[in-house]
């Protein structure tokens, strides 16, 4: 019974009650049907009796008609066929009907016993009619006296017996009905009593079985509502309430886990709020530093702007100088070309001189030969040739001198030609150098113009940088305001965390959960408390610091504004 769930229990209880009700109603129904059957049978029996009497009378009439025929000679108009008289018609159809088959045995026997005497009666009637028609009136009378009268007597007896039998049956039925009615009353009474007892028992059992558990559940839910998550519902049942208790226990353990998590999270939030506060302080300091750095940057940018302007001026000057240098170098190139031409002329002249010297040399050689021949002749001439020999010697001398001079000139010319060649090379080189100088100067000019345009770009860039610095200054101001807001937010966050921790104190968690938490927080819980304390202690200081920082920031930013 205890293993059943509540639905089945209820089904069973109400099923039992319904079964009782059904039984009672069946009993009542059966009894009343019996009574009505009895009544019906009485009525039917009455009908049957009167029917039987009618048949008896009909046959009495039939006998009278026969006796009249015999004795008075009256026409016999009744039927001789046993199946065609009123009774016969009914009887044979009755005997073949279902009703007869279901009749009581006594009545059936009696009904069966009717057939023979009835048939004999009608056959006897036929025999009488035959005798009469044959004219044997005595025979007919004899037959009538000996056969027909006993048969009809017998038939009457059976009729009476049938009526009596029917009356007996009715009486018996009436008695039966009365008996069953009283039995029914008793049975209904008993069933009702049993029903009442069963109902009370079921009500008691169910109330005890369900209500106690429900009350236990209500207590548990009240505990949860109070925030006590330490108690579990001790209800070891397999029905819906057991399931409910199990789920409630699950809920309690989940809730206590959740509460533990929330407590831990609130600690984390408190820590984080502290860190955010510290970060804000640092941020405030950095914002200050940023502002001063921006100031320096602005000053530097101004210097840079003036430098760039100077740069542009210098570049312009350099460009002009480069142009001058280029012109000069081009002039130099022209000079070099002229020099090259002059050198070529010198070289040509040197060649001509060399040719002339060749001629002079030839002449000197020939003169020398002549002088030698003269000397030889003079030697041959002996004493007379002496003076001639002297002249020849002088001529040879002159020839040799002119040859030597020619040789010297030749060497000089050779030297000068070599030098001219060398000079030519040098001039060529200097021409090339000048060309490359000109190229370099062009490049310098280009570079200088590039520098000039770059300076222009720099100037515009510096303007943009200046704008950017101004924007940055605005941003730094906004940052300072944000830092202030953030400080306030972190303060309220810390307060919120504290509130959360207070709210979480509302919950009392289960023993095992709290044990777990103690294990976890044995080193953490105290620090948490101290943390909270620290936060509380620090709160005013922090606020002060923040206020001071904000003021400082405000002052500085204002100063900066003035400077900018």
């Amino acid at each position, binding site marked *: 019974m205890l293993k059943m769930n509540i639905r089945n229990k209820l089904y069973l209880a109400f099923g039992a009650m319904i079964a009782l009700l059904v039984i009672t109603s069946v009993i009542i129904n059966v009894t009343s049907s019996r009574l009505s059957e009895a009544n019906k049978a009485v009525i039917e029996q009455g009908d049957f009796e009167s029917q039987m009497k009618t048949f008896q009378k009909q046959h009495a009439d039939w006998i009278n008609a026969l006796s009249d025929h015999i004795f008075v000679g009256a026409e016999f108009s009744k039927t001789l066929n046993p199946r065609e008289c009123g009774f016969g018609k009914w009887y044979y159809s009755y005997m073949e009907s279902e009703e007869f088959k279901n009749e009581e045995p006594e009545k059936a026997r009696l009904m069966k016993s009717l057939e023979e005497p009835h048939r004999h009666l009608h056959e006897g009637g036929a025999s009488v009619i035959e005798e009469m028609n044959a004219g044997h009136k005595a025979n007919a009378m004899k037959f009538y006296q000996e056969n027909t009268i006993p048969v009809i007597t017998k038939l009457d007896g059976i009729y009476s017996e049938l009526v009596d039998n029917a009356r007996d049956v009715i009486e018996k039925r009436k008695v039966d009905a009365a008996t069953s009615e009283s039995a029914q009353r008793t049975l209904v009474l008993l069933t009702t009593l049993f029903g009442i007892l069963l109902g009370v028992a079921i009500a008691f059992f169910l109330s005890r079985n369900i209500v106690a558990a429900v009350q236990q559940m209500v207590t548990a839910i009240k505990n949860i509502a109070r925030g006590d998550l330490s108690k579990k519902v001790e209800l070891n049942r397999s029905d819906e309430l057991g399931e409910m208790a199990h789920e409630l226990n699950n809920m309690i353990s989940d809730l206590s886990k959740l509460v533990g998590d929330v407590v831990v999270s609130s600690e984390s939030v408190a820590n984080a709020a502290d860190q955010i506060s510290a970060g804000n302080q640092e941020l405030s300091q950095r914002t200050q530093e940023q502002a001063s750095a921006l100031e320096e940057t602005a000053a530097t940018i101004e210097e840079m702007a003036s430098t760039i302007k100077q740069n542009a001026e210098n570049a312009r000057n350099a460009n002009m100088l480069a142009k001058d240098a280029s012109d000069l170098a081009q002039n130099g190139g022209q000079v070099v070309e002229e020099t090259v031409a002059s050198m070529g002329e010198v070289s040509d002249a040197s060649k001509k001189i060399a040719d002339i010297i060749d001629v002079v040399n030839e002449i000197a*050689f020939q003169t020398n*030969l002549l002088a*030698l*021949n003269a*000397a*030889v002749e003079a*030697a*041959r001439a002996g004493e007379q040739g002496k003076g001639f*020999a*002297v002249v020849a010697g002088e001529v040879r001398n002159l020839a040799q001198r002119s040859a030597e001079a020619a040789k010297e000139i030749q060497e000089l010319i050779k030297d000068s030609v070599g030098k001219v060649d060398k000079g030519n090379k040098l001039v060529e080189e200097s021409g090339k150098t000048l060309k490359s100088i000109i190229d370099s100067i062009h490049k310098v000019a280009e570079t200088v113009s590039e520098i000039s345009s770059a300076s222009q770009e720099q100037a515009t860039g510096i303007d943009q940088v200046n704008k950017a610095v101004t924007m940055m200054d605005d941003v730094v101001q906004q940052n300072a305001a944000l830092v202030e807001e953030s400080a306030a937010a972190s303060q309220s966050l810390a307060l919120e965390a504290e509130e959360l921790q207070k709210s979480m104190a509302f919950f009392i968690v289960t023993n095992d959960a709290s044990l777990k938490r103690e294990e976890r927080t044995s080193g953490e819980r105290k620090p948490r408390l101290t943390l909270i304390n620290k936060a509380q202690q620090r709160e005013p200081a922090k606020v002060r610091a923040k206020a001071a920082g904000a003021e400082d920031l405000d002052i500085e930013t204002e100063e900066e504004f003035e400077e900018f």
Partner: protein
Amino acid sequence: MVRMDKLKGINQAISNGAGDQFVTFTLGEEEYGVEVLKVQEIIGYQRFTKVPSVPSFVKGVLNLRGSVVPVLDLRLKFNMAYREYDNFTVILILEVQERVIGVIVDAVSDVVNLSPDDIQQTPDFSSGIRVDFIKGMGRMDEKLIIILDIDRILSSSELALLDVA
């Protein structure tokens, strides 16, 4: 100074008589001398006619004012390296054993006077070396002049060959 020395040499030659006068010429580095009386004429290089099947030192023949003069290269005769002729190459026209021949030399230097004291005997080499055509070594200032005996330079068979030429 050099000029003064030369003048002095010429004067000496004049004072000492023709027998001691020499025409000096160069072959390569060395200076050679021949007696001035053996020299008929000194001419510049001229084109000459080449003659077939003669010794290599015989260069050909020269038309000297109508007479045919054989020309030989003294360098080749003395087994020295051949030198290309140029405008300053000189041909000495010499009288050798009543024949006139042309001798090609590098250049003619001078006409000098050498006293017998200035001429020393040819030093004796071993008997295998022919030095009979060297008359002696003339000493002049710092340098030595190889004095040639022109009559002995050419053997009689060679001279005959020149005749044919």
